């Protein structure tokens, strides 16, 4: 792999209580690219994404083995500041999650809590973030209305803007378009492709087709195992593993 890797997952095993949901996973995530991780339900993809910024800590009975290196540093190391880690590795969830406050406050929440006080700085940051997620034109005149009034697609772009406002290095997206219509999906995909210039993006697409449209590289997971990974075109056109081929041609999943 010629591309510099941003995250390096080494020998990751992940358990909920006794159940092993990720098995001996090794994966490099390239910088400034979109990596799509796809597979059927219960393959451990959501868990993997949640592990990357240690949201998985919130789940009782969760434990892991192995390490995940972010810029060469293990995120499981005892001296890691969780707050800081989560600011560097942002996350967008599968359903839009506007918080019960105005559009502006939703986007400004992260920076504000991180200590940014100046009003002008905040305004600038909110605008930049909303522009990057292609929502600015829709909402610039009603920033103080409750975020819940936005449409589903707009809400999800708001969530992306909210993550962007943190100036993260990595953005994780867990089936971000699963609750959206095709037009909203297209808009979000468009923004993502532009965003990869500055960010490392890991997406669990809600369809294989979405991975095909936007991902530079893809990884296929099944039952906690990483079956295959590589450049999108290669994996899609010439899958090395029969199971990948079966999944892509719709034999199961």
């Amino acid at each position, binding site marked *: 792999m010629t591309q510099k890797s941003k995250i390096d997952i080494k020998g990751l095993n992940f358990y909920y209580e006794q159940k092993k949901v990720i098995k001996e996973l090794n994966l490099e995530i390239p910088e400034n690219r979109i990596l799509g991780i796809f597979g059927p339900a219960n393959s451990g993809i959501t868990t993997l994404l949640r592990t990357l910024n240690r949201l998985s*800590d*919130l*789940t*009782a009975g969760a434990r892991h083995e192995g390490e995940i290196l972010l810029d060469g540093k293990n995120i499981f190391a005892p001296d890691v500041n969780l707050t800081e880690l989560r600011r560097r590795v942002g996350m967008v969830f599968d359903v839009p999650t506007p918080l019960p406050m105005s559009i502006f406050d939703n986007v400004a929440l992260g920076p504000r809590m991180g200590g940014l006080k100046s009003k002008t700085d905040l305004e600038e940051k909110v605008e930049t973030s909303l522009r990057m997620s292609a929502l600015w034109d829709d909402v610039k005149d009603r920033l103080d209305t409750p975020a819940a009034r936005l449409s589903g697609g707009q809400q999800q772009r708001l969530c992306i803007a909210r993550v962007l406002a943190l100036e993260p290095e990595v953005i994780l997206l867990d089936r971000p378009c699963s609750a959206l219509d095709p037009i909203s999906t297209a808009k979000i995909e468009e923004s993502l492709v532009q965003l990869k210039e500055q960010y490392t993006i890991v997406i669990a697409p809600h369809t294989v087709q979405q991975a095909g449209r936007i991902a530079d590289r893809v990884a296929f997971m099944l039952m906690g195992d990483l079956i295959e990974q590589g450049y999108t075109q290669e994996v899609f056109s010439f899958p090395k593993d029969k199971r990948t081929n079966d999944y892509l041609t719709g034999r199961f999943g």
Partner: protein
Amino acid sequence: MFDFCEDMKKGIVTCKLLKGIKVAGGAVILTLSMGLLSACSQAPESATIIAGSTSVQPYAEILAERYMALDPEAIIDIQGGGSSAGITATQTHSAGIGMSSRSLEDGEKDLWSVEIAKDGLAIIVNPANPIKNLTSDQIRDIYAASITDWSQVGGTKSKINIIAREEGSGTRSAFTELLMGKKEITPKAIVQDSNGAVRQLVADDPNAIGFISLGLVSDEVKALQLDGVEATRDNIMNNSYKLSRQFLFVTSGEPTGIQKSFIDFTLSPEGQKLLSKEGLIPSAEGEAK
């Protein structure tokens, strides 16, 4: 849902009982100090507190209202609590003036006291009740439940519904003292906690009998003659109607300052007129002035 809490396992669950007690103690102290803090931060003004008999309370309220209108600087708070509580409060200086509707007992004699008015006690029945007069003995027997039917005292045949005041009430103790002698009011008597409630009940119930302050008798009820003597003010003043009691103001030591001027106001012609208008019988001390 609740098991998602971060890093919780190690935390509190293992907290030992001892630690728990310490923390609970801390919370108690917190609560206490909060109360004290709020108490101290508010400098109370020097309100004169008048506490005691709820029979006297309404009259004291009327007096205080007028008094405060005359002297806007003065602040007077009237509290109930009953005669005994009022006397105790005066002894412990938590009230400036105590109100009592009974005479002072031994051990309370060190207080300074003055009769502000007399109150008559009326025995009342429903206006529909044909009876007009009862003897002291009959009333005693009714309240002791040895007479239980109106026909036994010359009325129509129906059960007597006895209404009394509650234990501790000055009106009740006056009634017991003046009429019951050695006998007790039957525990079967209905107990109401105010003159008004007794009056209301007698007004509603043709078979009821009760006793209230003479000043509160209204058209809804009928005051009975006692041993042939009409319950009126004149008859109380000439001592022919024997059911009456004193209303006292008590202070610890000779009253001074605002206490004195309020008591003086009460005994003044204007004060006595107010009380008289409410149905009380003017105090001998007031007339002497």
